[in-house]
């Protein structure tokens, strides 16, 4: 028998193994609990609001397209504030773009035009773009989807 076997009995070895196993199991149980708590503080206030970026990222008159909850969303910043619309054209489902110069939302496929309220101005779309609530809290933009 070597020195290790003489100093460490089978009982001690089993004790360490069980204690180590219990510790590992405890950590394993704690991890999902922490990941459950973590997003609430990281992704914004409750009530289905989702943080999509900071105010500085979108200049006045500019826009940004984001994917939230599997939906393509177009966020535009006008002098009145931020507005969010579905980026999917109500005609045939193409992704729409914000024309900063004309201050209009344009569908590149069939020239559907929407104003900055998402209402149809001209072209084939028959319905306005669905809109989403936007909140700005501490310089962060949140939208409700």
């Amino acid at each position: 028998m070597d020195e290790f076997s003489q100093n460490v009995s089978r009982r001690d070895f089993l004790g360490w193994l069980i204690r180590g196993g219990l510790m590992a199991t405890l950590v394993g149980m704690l991890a999902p609990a922490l990941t459950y708590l973590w997003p609430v503080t990281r992704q914004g206030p409750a009530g289905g609001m989702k943080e999509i970026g900071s105010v500085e990222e979108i200049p006045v008159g500019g826009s940004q397209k984001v994917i939230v909850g599997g939906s393509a969303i177009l966020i535009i910043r006008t002098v009145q504030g931020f507005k969010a619309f579905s980026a999917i054209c109500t005609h045939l489902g193409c992704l729409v773009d914000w024309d900063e110069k004309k201050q209009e939302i344009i569908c590149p496929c069939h020239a559907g035009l929407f104003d900055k309220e998402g209402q149809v101005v001209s072209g084939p779309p028959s319905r306005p773009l669905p809109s989403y609530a936007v909140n700005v809290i501490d310089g962060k933009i949140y939208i409700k989807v």
Partner: protein
Amino acid sequence: MKIFFIIGAFFILITDTTWAQTQESNSCLACHDDYWQEMKGSVHAQQGISCYHCHGGDPTKADQESAKDPATGYIGIPDKQQIANICGGCHSDVEKMNFYGIRTDQLARYKTSHHGKKLLLGNDTRVAVCSDCHGYHDVLPVSDPNSPVYPLNVPKTCNRCHGNEKLMSAYHLPADIFKIYQNSVHGKALLEKKDLSVANCASCHGSHGAVPPGVKDLGATCGKCHINEKKYFLESVHAKPMGQGKFSECISCHSNHGVQPATEALFQQACVKCHEAGSPAFKEGEKILRLLSGAKEHLSKASGIVRQASIEGIFVEDEEAILEEVKTHVVEMEPLQHTLSSEKISQLYEKAQQGADEIKNSINEKRQSLKWRKITLIPLWIFIVVISIALLLRFKELKHHKDKGS
């Protein structure tokens, strides 16, 4: 419940009072009550337009002779020319129509139409005048779904005359336009899906100024709705012969009343009408067709990959976003093909292909990651088994000590 009863009674009372007042001040109703029944729900009756506004006469006179005295302007049943002028008398008066926000160029436009020219210049009374489309005593606003000129009803209203074979043969016009339109992409969208935004007869031919669009006006007519198609067509090699009147912009390929959904089969059906198979123009068409079909195939495969991955439980939010972009490029190619430029179309094709490849690679990476996560489960299972054995041995050991002690 009580409140509804009170409101109902109030309306009945008002209607009865109005009726009594109308009968009192309008002697026409003494004999022509049936006409009043027709008229009382009309937009004109609601605005206080009465019999004498169109028929002349003096409704304040109780005896028929005085009421219908020619000096009162009594004309009885107006003929078609009179109808155009009577309706136009008010409807071209800006001061009268301003209040209702109605345009005042209907009579001016009617005079430019084939109907108007035939009636007013040729005294042809078989053509349509205001009352043939709008009705006469029971005229409703255009926005009323019961109006014969409500967008959904326009084709049927036009067909009342344009479906009459005997009448149309006199003008050498076909009488089957409605049947053809009914089976077209526009007709199905309007009549079956009730989509009021699609083209009805008046959208292309005009309403009061109804004339068939000429060869050079066709693009402008279709281009009112198909904006990008028209824009790209003007960049194509077909624009020049169209300008020379040799090529009819849209109907050369799509036809007019019977326009069908534009499919890829159109390349084989329409191009060969003018271009010989194997000619450079025909080959360019084939190239465009390959690009269109290829892009649709990429979209279809990418959609399938994303759908399958989603079923497998893979998180595909990013890939769905790329898929939207691919879809946009594919749909964008449809109007762009009117440029007949394979170079421009291939730019979108490449973008669609890149997007589809990106989706494929991304999903493959996620599948690999999932595979490795499953492999990682093996040591975890070994760990659980070892701990279980350790616990069992410890239990036996404790039990052995307990038995020994007792």
